[in-house]
């Protein structure tokens, strides 16, 4: 079912992701402006704000801090968009991904795990206490979200009896996984936010710690880190479409349009849903993640396994 896309798709992928990230960031800016200025404040005019910020950072100067480890920090910063694009390589557009390896689901998981290293390194590099606190926060967050997340994507792979993303999509021709694996789907959405350290999981870059891991990064460094975060959000949220929402399957419209629609819907849901929640601090969330989400996802996997065995 799923084919590998032509070579030009490899070149196109980063640009497509950046464009999607800019749109999502614009939506977020509009919602923020609506909260700040009210409906009368013409919030729609804030849509290009992320682009303006990006250009400002591009023209700004990076900075160095005393006795830091700038190269380690920069490796961490660069890892964020690199991980996002590498994970995006297995993201099917319609039924075609840039590549569709046998173990695509595990590949995706491995690439987003690079964020563990990335955020900590970005926080470590500048030799600043607040920024290091931000880096440590992400590791605590990783411990909270990673296990339920792994169980959630395992459940989807179990339902399809394959680790190949294309086959996971193909298995949902009749019924979307989101319908009969709702718990796994919900947990995946939560962990998508968490691994993009965005939204209610933005504590590693929290404003209370003056920007956390990003506190000391300016100029292009900052741009790459923050834009990489949006890319990561787009990719992780977008991956819920092939895993749980039937990928390109749908009536009337072509497959690519369905992918686009579903991805936009998931991203819109996440960006709008962020308004409803304060930042989740891990010292409170971890207990919930391990005592509620882990058993929940395990139960979900058990149910799916029983269904698959009796199919």
């Amino acid at each position, binding site marked *: 079912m799923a084919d590998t896309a032509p070579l030009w798709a490899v070149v196109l992928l980063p640009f497509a992701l950046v464009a999607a990230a800019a749109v999502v960031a614009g939506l977020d800016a509009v919602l923020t402006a609506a909260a700040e200025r009210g409906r009368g404040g013409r919030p729609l005019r804030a849509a290009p704000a992320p682009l303006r910020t990006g250009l400002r950072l591009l023209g700004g100067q990076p900075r160095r801090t005393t006795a830091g480890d700038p190269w380690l920090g920069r490796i961490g910063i660069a890892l964020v968009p690199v991980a996002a694009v590498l994970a995006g390589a297995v993201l099917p557009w319609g039924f075609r991904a840039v590549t569709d390896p046998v173990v695509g689901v595990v590949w995706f998981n491995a690439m987003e795990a690079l964020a563990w290293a990335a955020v*900590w390194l970005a926080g470590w590099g500048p030799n600043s206490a607040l920024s290091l606190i931000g880096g440590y926060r992400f590791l605590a967050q990783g411990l909270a979200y990673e296990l339920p997340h792994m169980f959630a994507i395992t459940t989807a792979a179990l339902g399809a009896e394959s680790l190949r993303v294309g086959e996971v999509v193909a298995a949902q021709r009749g019924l979307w996984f989101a319908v009969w694996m709702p718990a796994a789907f919900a947990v995946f959405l939560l962990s998508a936010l968490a691994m993009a350290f965005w939204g209610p999981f933005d504590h590693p870059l929290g404003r209370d710690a003056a920007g956390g891991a990003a506190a000391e990064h300016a100029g292009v460094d900052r741009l790459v880190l923050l834009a990489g975060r949006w890319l990561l959000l787009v990719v992780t949220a977008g991956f819920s479409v092939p895993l749980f929402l039937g990928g390109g399957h749908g009536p009337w419209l072509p497959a690519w349009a369905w992918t686009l629609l579903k991805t936009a819907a998931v991203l819109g849901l996440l960006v709008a849903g962020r308004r409803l929640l304060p930042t989740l601090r891990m010292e409170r969330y971890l207990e919930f993640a391990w005592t509620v989400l882990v058993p929940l996802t395990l139960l979900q996997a058990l149910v799916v396994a029983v269904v698959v065995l009796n199919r």
Partner: protein
Amino acid sequence: MLDDVVFWALAGPAVAAAVMVFRFASMARATYALLASLLCVGGLVVRLGLDYLGVVVVLMMTIEMALMGVFMVMFMMNPAGLMPMSMLHNRRGAAVISGGVFVLLAAGVLLTPWPRRRGEPAADPTKALGESLMGPHMLTMMTLGLALFATIVATVVLATRRGRYDRFGDDLRARRAGDRGDGGDGGARVRGGAGP
């Protein structure tokens, strides 16, 4: 040809990064040099045709090294770049041991009469791996899993001084857990009535 290029492109950096683990004077750099080395090894495993194992090496090692980095610096707020420290300890002993192990392994590689290949590699190595682990060795895996889990629980129980009675009160009736993260210091402070 391409295989050779890929092999050396991964093997060279793997060894170089491994050497750098002992050359760096910063624990963070050493940790992430080790990670770089292990990522290259993961790539080599993929080149062997074991996609699943290779990608899992990448996944697990990234998470493991990120956590190990924390344990290595263990909340040292002085980034070790500030505080140069040697990664070499017990130099002579270490040299003897590592040299001995290398000689042993190399001798093993060169002297073993390797058998000729019989049969074909499985069409789906991931499935073959799963079947060999979960088929004949199911009992081993189950035992291993339980033993590991019991170890984790036991270590945590031994390591923590606080139990549920400290968190939820003697009758386990407290509405919220009195955790230290909330500013309590392990039950020493009385909540509610007494005040600071």
